[in-house]
């Protein structure tokens, strides 16, 4: 029983229904109840490459998804002004460095190529982004990549798209009705959700996808939110939709994240428009000032007339996650579980991880549910903590001191101890699998390397271990990245050209 029908609800419904072959194999039913009046929040337009696996798992066609969700390809993020607040930038691409795990790339980089940004030496992908290339060709099959990629999508279209697939193809029962009351069993489990028009609707497991209201886990069970505002200050956002200047304007194949005085601006290229938003700390900046900064940014990218016509939509949130994610027979997914600022687009990735684990570990009996719940809570507390560590890293490494916001971010009271320990460790070694040893880490050690070295963090020169053959091996991988880059630039269409092509032609399944 899934309560709530945004991206989280329909992703969870889709994964569970597809994995368990509903309705072909009897024994399990998936019902989704959603209120007719609640409009989805529509944040989280960036995704991780895991979304390709999730969509394939659900059984949707990539071509349909791209056409119907205004989706575009995303190959990573470009961070501007985060380090010094000037014109500097660095890339966090989705492709791992060439030879990652095979050679120590960091020491040879610093010794021989220190003038080249780390990501641009070890990966072909930043150049593909700079040149506005698509991550694949017209002949590349659905979900296959030439260069690792995810999507930018219109969250307002994504939910309805998944809904159509779930109800028409996956046998998910859809009830559009208000939930008026939650009914409890004697043992404290949820017995039913009571709706205005359909009466009691019963389930064995309730998945709370009710967004910020967290109707079941937060309101019914009273599970408190662990606030992460002491570490991540941002609690407000202003979002606008910006039209392209021309029908053939380039579409960036990466998220552009620009640091500001008390927050940062996201800039996401969809097919038909850009999604731009300013996320900031209300304790450090007024809405009026935040809006002015957003308008200035949009004006620089388009023109004053377009920027003046925009009316920003305000969002407020309490950054944090629920202390327990799975309580008795209720598990929360998406905003109902928690939310932090959209830096690094972890929101939908966490939804995918949650849906996958619920589906993979779906308890066969009520007695087993407590065991599964304990595992789930352990796994997701860990994931939330790591996501917050990784986001905080971006602030911790900044050298900006142009506002109290940036200085306070680096104050020791605002830094989680595990992250401080890791940073100390990374003065003498590179982030590696020893630091992130779980099977499905939300952010792999390579991501930490891209951010660390992209933001100017430099290890002590003497300490990193380096075997005899390493220098030559690393150089081979640097050359490999450069060669791949040249051949890909010659073969890949622009992001815009491929997206236009997909309006007329389908990607093949094989």
């Amino acid at each position, binding site marked *: 029983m899934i309560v709530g029908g945004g991206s989280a609800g329909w992703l969870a419904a889709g994964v569970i229904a597809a994995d368990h072959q509903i309705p072909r194999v009897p024994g399990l039913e998936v019902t989704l109840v959603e209120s007719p009046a609640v409009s989805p929040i529509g944040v989280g337009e960036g995704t991780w490459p895991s979304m390709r696996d999730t969509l394939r798992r659900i059984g949707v066609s990539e071509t349909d998804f791209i056409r119907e969700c205004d989706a575009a390809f995303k190959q990573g993020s470009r961070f501007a002004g985060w380090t010094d607040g000037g014109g500097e930038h660095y890339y966090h691409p989705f492709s791992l460095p060439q030879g990652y795990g095979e050679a120590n790339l960091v020491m040879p980089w610093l010794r021989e190529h220190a003038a080249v940004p780390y990501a641009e030496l070890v990966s072909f992908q930043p150049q593909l982004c700079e040149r506005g290339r698509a991550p694949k060709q*017209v*002949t*590349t099959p659905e979900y296959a990549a030439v260069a690792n990629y995810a999507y930018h999508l219109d969250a307002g279209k994504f939910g309805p798209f998944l809904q159509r697939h779930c109800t028409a193809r996956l046998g998910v029962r859809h009830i559009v009705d208000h939930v008026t009351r939650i009914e409890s069993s004697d043992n404290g489990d949820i017995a039913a959700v009571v709706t205005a028009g359909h009466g009691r609707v019963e389930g064995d497991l309730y998945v709370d996808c009710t967004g910020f209201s967290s109707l079941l886990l937060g309101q019914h069970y009273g599970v408190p939110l662990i606030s992460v505002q002491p570490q991540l200050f941002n609690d407000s956002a202003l979002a606008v939709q910006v039209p392209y200047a021309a029908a053939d304007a380039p579409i960036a194949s990466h998220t552009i994240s620009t640091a500001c005085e008390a927050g940062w601006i996201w800039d996401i290229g969809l097919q038909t428009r850009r999604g731009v938003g300013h996320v900031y700390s209300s304790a450090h900046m007024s809405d009026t000032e935040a809006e002015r900064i957003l308008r200035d940014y949009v004006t620089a990218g388009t023109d004053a007339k377009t920027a003046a016509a925009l009316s920003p939509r305000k969002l407020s949130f309490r950054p944090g996650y629920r202390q327990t994610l799975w309580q008795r027979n209720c598990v929360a997914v998406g905003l109902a579980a928690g939310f932090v600022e959209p830096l690094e687009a972890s929101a939908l990735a966490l939804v995918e991880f949650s849906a996958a684990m619920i589906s993979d570990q779906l308890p066969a009996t009520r007695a087993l549910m407590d065991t599964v719940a304990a595992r789930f809570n352990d796994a997701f507390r860990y994931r939330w903590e790591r996501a917050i560590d990784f986001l905080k890293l971006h602030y911790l490494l900044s050298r900006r001191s142009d506002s109290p916001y940036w200085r306070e971010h680096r104050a020791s009271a605002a830094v989680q101890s595990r992250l401080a320990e890791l940073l100390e460790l990374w003065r003498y070694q590179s982030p590696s699998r020893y630091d992130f040893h779980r099977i499905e880490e939300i952010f792999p050690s390579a991501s930490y390397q891209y951010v660390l070295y992209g933001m100017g963090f430099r290890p002590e020169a003497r300490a990193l271990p380096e075997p005899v053959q390493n220098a030559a091996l690393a150089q081979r991988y640097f050359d490999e990245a450069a060669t791949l880059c040249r051949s890909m630039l010659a073969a890949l269409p622009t992001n815009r050209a491929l997206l236009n*092509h997909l309006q007329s*032609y*389908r*990607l*093949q*399944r*094989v």
Partner: protein
Amino acid sequence: MARHVPLNNIEHKSLRIVTTRSAAYGDDQMFALTVPAEFRSVQSCYPIVFQKRSDTGQFQPLALFGFQPGENLFLTEAGWDATYVPISVERLPFLIGGPGVAQAGQPAQPMIHIDLDNPRVSSTEGEAVFLEYGGSSPFLERISSMLGSLHEGLAATTAFVDALQGLDLLESFVLDVGHKDGSSSRLAGFYTVNEERVRALDGAAVSKLQAQGFLEPMYMVVASTVHFRDLIERRNRRS
């Protein structure tokens, strides 16, 4: 290279077309486009495989003649050594051009075009295109009907390929062939129908394919793969 013009019986009145099959006339092709309507004839001589067009990414079925670009193992001193030649080869140097010009009350009609730079175009030898007083020759009538089949076949191909893909029947393959002369060729970038999945189709899927008219061409593709052996033997006889 190519000079495509609409065919007309005034300017092209005395045009003749050489029908001899040889490399000099551009027959040294590794493969040629085919359409489901002629699969039955094509599979009697050649393997039918699929390839993605590099411009659209869409699958097109091909009759395979050799293992590498420029190699047509059916082309001999005496001409084309097979009982059937695919219509996409037979119809050259003619093609369907543009939508034509819409007349009052009538939609645009596909029109026959000719590539005047094709080496088959002659004024002295070969088959006459037009009769003495401007009527179409039997040769042109035959070409015209082939072009019609090809044109319709291209539309049918899309639906056929979609049906195969909908059932996950297409798969890529790589064929490494060691030849008697010690050389070897690798055939890559082509796709075929997975026979095991065809055999595993349930009744509903089979009857849907039958209703769409795709069951026969699908089996023709499966049957055509026996000609890989023939292709290898032809290659070995050559070296």
